[in-house]
């Protein structure tokens, strides 16, 4: 029985797993990131992707208040529900991405203590590996407060 198509997004603290449908592209070469004023410390700046300006976020800083490891890829996400069609965002990655199908039998496990529960919807164990599922509603609230 097919599972849920997903993408593994390694970060410097935990390994995220997100639905494939949420991912627009994995960009291999670290982009030319430009700074932005008046943004939270977890916003690293923006870069150009397919002619769109894309905000680059450090999940390490956002969810664990930890310094971000050097990223070697970025994962570009489609705009969050209800946002403008050009509101792409990206997370810095620290490792190799991988596609997989989360089997229905995958069991829920405890959320690793390294990350804040605020931005995590849950965690599953696949092949003896703990994969953390980000909470996209919480990300949206953090990304666009009062908007």
């Amino acid at each position, binding site marked *: 029985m097919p599972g849920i198509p997903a993408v593994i997004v390694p970060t410097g603290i935990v390994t995220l797993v997100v639905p494939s449908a949420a991912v627009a592209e994995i960009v291999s070469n670290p982009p030319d990131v430009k700074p932005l*004023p008046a*943004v939270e410390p977890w916003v690293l700046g923006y870069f*150009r992707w397919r002619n769109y300006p894309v905000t680059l976020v450090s999940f390490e800083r956002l969810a664990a208040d930890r310094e971000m490891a050097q990223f070697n890829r970025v994962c570009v996400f489609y705009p969050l529900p209800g946002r403008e069609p050009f509101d792409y965002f990206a997370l810095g990655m620290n490792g190799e991405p991988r596609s997989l199908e989360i089997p229905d039998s995958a069991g829920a496990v405890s959320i690793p203590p390294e990350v804040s529960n605020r931005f995590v919807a849950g965690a599953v164990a696949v092949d003896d590996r703990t994969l953390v599922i980000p909470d996209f509603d919480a990300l949206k609230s953090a990304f666009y407060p009062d908007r």
Partner: protein
Amino acid sequence: MLDQRAFLRIREGGFAFLLAADQAVSIERRNRGAFEPVGDGLALLAAWQPADDGRIPVLRLSLLLGTPAADWEYAIMLSDDSRRLALAAEHVYLIPEHEKPAIQSFNPAGSTLPGGAVITGLCPQTEPEYLVLDMPRLQRCLRRAAAAVGL
């Protein structure tokens, strides 16, 4: 009064910003001595016009945007029904309507400003890319920041 169809290019803290001039009254260039600091990023600017009976609260753009501050040299006087306010920056340049650069919508995530980001777009064909500021929202932020310190 400035041409309301014009735009202002502001340089501040290593960034370049584009601002519609529709609520700006004038651009004043003053030396640093004309600004009387009253707080971090705030100052009073005296003698805008001879008819003025009070001093003008001036807010440094870097205070709002968290950018590094350099010398204060320019002040953008803003129209306001109740009182006057000004925005100070390192450099301000008036861009006529016919030279307005193309603007692309952009909502950066993670704004630290109350009410959300004042950045609403950027100019992809300029170098560096100008960040487009929402003038009404910026003015509300200015009023709020000035009121917080009793100006």
